[in-house]
């Protein structure tokens, strides 16, 4: 059987397969206080304490956004 007219080979890009993970993976946010690292990547909570902060979680398209305002 011959080839269907619709099929054709074209380069899909990528010099390697499967693609290798970034050497810096996994990446995480580093939490600091006045420039001092607060520790490893296992923090699961950031707690803003004190009346000077106003912290709000976005809604709708901003649902993934947390805003911190310092008064």
């Amino acid at each position, binding site marked *: *059987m*011959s080839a*269907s007219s619709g099929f054709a080979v*074209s380069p*899909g890009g*990528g010099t390697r*397969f499967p693609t290798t993970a970034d050497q810096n993976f996994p990446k995480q946010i580093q939490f600091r206080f006045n420039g001092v690292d607060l520790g490893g990547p296992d923090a699961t909570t950031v707690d803003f304490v004190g009346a000077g902060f106003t912290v709000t979680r976005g809604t709708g398209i901003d649902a993934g956004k947390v805003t911190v305002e310092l008064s």
Partner: protein
Amino acid sequence: MAQTPVYDLLPPIRQICRGCHTTTMNEAYISAVRQFCHHTKWFLSTLAGTTAASTATYNLGSDAYSEIIGVNAISLTYSSSDIRDLERLSSAAWDPDAQTQVPEFFEYVPEAQFALHPTPDAAYPLTISLILQPKIGSNSIEEALVSKWDHAFRAGALEYLMRIPGMAWTDKSEANRQFMLFEDWKNRGASSAAKRNSVGVVPVQGWAGGLANRRPREVW
């Protein structure tokens, strides 16, 4: 590829399922062909292409009537007197640090892509054997499929139609018989594909009723 309209293949089914809508019969027929092709890997097509230097993955495009469900084989022309068959090997076993050179291995990457290893260091002509099946909603079938396996597709289509509840042609008992015939035909198709290119499913031995070793009976 020469195509046969599914509509032209429906009269034997229409004689049994009188009053059935053409669209439903078309869907039943295409569904049977897709099941057959998926099970047997019988429907192949060759495609010519070329590697690109430092490119590991390749797209295979699309077609109006058929879709790619696998790559059966790839051969690479290193020189006019040196044509090499690439070996199918899971990319899990590929060396991520390998330098670019003449590819030795390939892997099919769904949907309709393949990858080469090592990554080619130059442009080499390829001949690719594609495993195909008709697309859902297609209204025509490759002629080679029809000429050899039309009776199989009829059995599959009849099984589909006779299982629809509440129709004048509904017949669960006959549907079960058509199912067994269709299974038998699929095993024959797999055997045929395996003999042709060592790809496919080994026929079931000792299957219920021993139908795998018997010639299917036909009702039309």
